């Protein structure tokens, strides 16, 4: 397999140049001040709904705060899985050329999680728990486990980075929210470049030896995973914090309703990342 060793070395040098102390990178005020936006209003799950029309701008800002906490919580749980999965693959025989860069990935993702956790703990007093179950599998096809792991990381990073860029640019947002998104994007662009190349290499290496049925199912799983990432942006725990009744019913209605423009754009970004890696649009009823 042609592993992206030269790319890993280039990114490694860039990471060394951009190295920073996470404790110094962000200034944490004692409190956040008055009402403010933390997510762009158009990105909020209830934007345009009857709830939105019946409530005040101050309540919309409050929703943006809790949805930002949910976004950061998603990041924390995603990066925990990433760090765990990368750590188990350090110096793996299947990935011999990129281990040094994997060390850097772990370091940078850990720094991000420190920021996310600090914001959630300091200003919200909570990190929302994940709404997922990790189920072990023992029926992987050859190369599938690494491919599924790195492709899911790529999808996760595409999603959060697209949001990071939009949120960092939005001048309506609280400066701290913009800064966290800006700093996260600075590292994520390197991680995505690495992930994109590695996933393409893994797909090229392994998919040729799989039966067409396996190829369809793996591709389907990955497209389904992208859809579940979008679902995670809608969390009943957010609505509970807002004092909204029947939170699960509302979340289901949001997910069953017309997709918001921001979600369509996020899905397109993730889909493009898979297609760029050579992974076809698959059976939406994946196996995993």
């Amino acid at each position: 397999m042609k592993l992206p060793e030269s790319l890993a070395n280039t990114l490694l040098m860039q990471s060394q140049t951009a190295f920073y102390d996470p404790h110094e990178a962000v200034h944490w005020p004692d409190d956040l001040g008055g009402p403010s936006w933390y997510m762009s209003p158009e990105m909020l799950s209830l934007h345009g709904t009857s709830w939105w029309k019946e409530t005040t701008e101050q309540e919309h800002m409050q929703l943006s705060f809790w949805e930002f906490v949910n976004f950061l919580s998603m990041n924390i749980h995603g990066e925990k899985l990433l760090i765990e999965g990368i750590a188990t693959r350090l110096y793996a025989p299947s990935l011999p050329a990129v281990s040094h860069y994997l060390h850097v990935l772990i370091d940078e993702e850990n720094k991000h999680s420190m920021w996310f956790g600090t914001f959630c703990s300091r200003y919200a007093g909570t990190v929302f728990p994940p709404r997922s179950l990790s189920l072990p599998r023992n029926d992987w096809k050859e190369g599938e486990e690494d491919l599924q792991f790195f492709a899911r990381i790529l999808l996760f990073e595409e999603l959060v980075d697209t949001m990071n860029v939009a949120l960092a640019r939005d001048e309506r947002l609280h400066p701290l929210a913009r800064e966290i998104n800006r700093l996260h994007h600075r590292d994520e662009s390197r991680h995505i470049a690495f992930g994109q190349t590695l996933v393409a290499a893994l797909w090229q290496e392994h998919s040729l030896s799989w039966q067409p049925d396996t190829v369809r199912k793996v591709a389907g799983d990955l497209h389904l995973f992208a859809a579940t990432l979008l679902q995670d942006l809608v969390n009943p725990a957010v609505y509970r914090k807002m004092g909204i009744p029947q939170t699960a019913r509302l979340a289901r209605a949001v997910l069953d309703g017309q997709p918001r423009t921001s979600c369509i754009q996020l899905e397109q970004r993730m889909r493009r990342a898979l297609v760029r890696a050579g992974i076809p649009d698959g059976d939406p009823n994946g196996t995993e």
Partner: protein
Amino acid sequence: MERSEVEKEILSWISSHSSRHDGGHLSASTPVLLERWVTSLQIAELLLFLEDTYDLELTVDTLKPENFQTAATIADLVLRVRDASHG
């Protein structure tokens, strides 16, 4: 709320959301995770269905594979959490 009714509704949800189309038999004791009637990617949607249908909140301590092994264990979880929250 009858246990048999809860099991029936859960089985109906699993049957309509499963990607398995091989004609396998699904009952209250079918190991739905092991046999992939329900996958990890469907858990979040199942949680919303349970919370909405039975008016309950499933906290992180309930999210263990053993609670989701079969429609029967899921029904047990629903009834346990509902009893605890409704006194």
